[in-house]
């Protein structure tokens, strides 16, 4: 039972399906929770209805821009969600610029010019954020690499099949069968 290959073969036949199924279900559930968490947005903190633009299309645009911008005072909320004074001012500026007919890109550029890319809740890919963006991809690549490597190794071994028994092993087997 000490041969590595043999024990692996036996393990595959063990009735461990319920455990595997449960693990898969758990994975699916975790994935679902993540997806839901990403799509569900919190309610906006625009407290003063006077802040809102009368034109609903423009207001929606302004809110969409504000949700992409970080409140610089609280740093973990968007401009739309924050009740900080500075966030309120920036909301007002966004709405003024939307009404003035500036594009989303122009308005976001205006903010980045003043506060840097830190104001973007979704950081752009640049030298500073290369590690941030690159790590998941690198981790995935390493994982796929390891998976391919081990599957290949196992296949190579499977093709060769287990090594034929030596005389000593055959003798031991016969002794075991006889007893």
């Amino acid at each position: 039972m000490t041969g590595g290959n043999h024990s692996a073969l036996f393990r595959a036949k063990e009735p461990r399906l319920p455990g595997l199924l449960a693990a898969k279900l758990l994975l699916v559930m975790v994935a679902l929770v993540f997806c839901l968490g990403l799509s569900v947005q919190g309610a906006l903190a625009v407290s003063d209805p006077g802040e809102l633009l009368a034109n609903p299309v423009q207001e929606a645009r302004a809110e969409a821009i504000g949700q992409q911008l970080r409140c610089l005072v609280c740093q973990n909320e968007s401009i739309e969600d924050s009740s900080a004074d500075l966030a309120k001012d920036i909301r007002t500026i966004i709405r003024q610029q939307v009404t003035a007919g500036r594009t989303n890109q122009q308005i976001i550029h205006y903010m980045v010019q003043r506060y840097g890319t830190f104001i973007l809740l979704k950081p752009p890919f640049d030298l500073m954020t290369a590690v941030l963006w690159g790590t998941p991809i690198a981790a995935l690549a390493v994982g796929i690499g390891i998976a391919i490597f081990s599957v290949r190794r196992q296949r190579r071994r499977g093709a060769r099949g287990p090594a034929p028994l030596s005389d000593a092993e055959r003798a031991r087997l016969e002794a075991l069968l006889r007893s």
Partner: protein
Amino acid sequence: MSDLPHPPVGQPRPIGRRLMLGVPLGLLAVAAGGWAVMLQRMQKGEFDPHTLPSQLIGKKVPDFTLPGLNGPGITGAELQAPKQPMLVNFFASWCLPCMEEAAVLKEIAAQGLPIWGITYKDKPEATRAFLAKNGNPYQRIAMDLPGRVAINWGVYGVPETYFIDGGGIVRWRFAGPLTDVVVRRDIVRLLARAEKTAA
């Protein structure tokens, strides 16, 4: 049983094992080292994870015109072509850290580095009372009541202090109350460098 020959033991793969153990442990050690350095620098006040870099560094300040509190106001043009290195300090009477740094600002002004103040969303009477109580280190004070000039500078809180060199280029921004440590560490160095480039 003992007289039975033992089956061959599977060949161990020491390199693979060592890698599987060593690489994660090595990464962990690097991460822990970086973490320790960060914590130490935070404790010494050299690093604050909440400060963000100013976009004005290496540039001239934007154009603006602000009314003065008592005498003349401040314009961007004056700060774009200053006569000598100087500090610009955004402050407000309602801001507690501004009170904290008042003594440090006084000391800086006494050393001969001009400080111009810009009040952020502050009523003039409140500013005057604040200055009467805490002292007035400013050569000139202008008022940014709507706070829009501050946004154009990238100010995200008060107090904030900017160092402008003799060529009108912003070289440094500090968010939060100035302390003796900051003066010794940053302002002295900035002044030395400004003098070197001027000479």
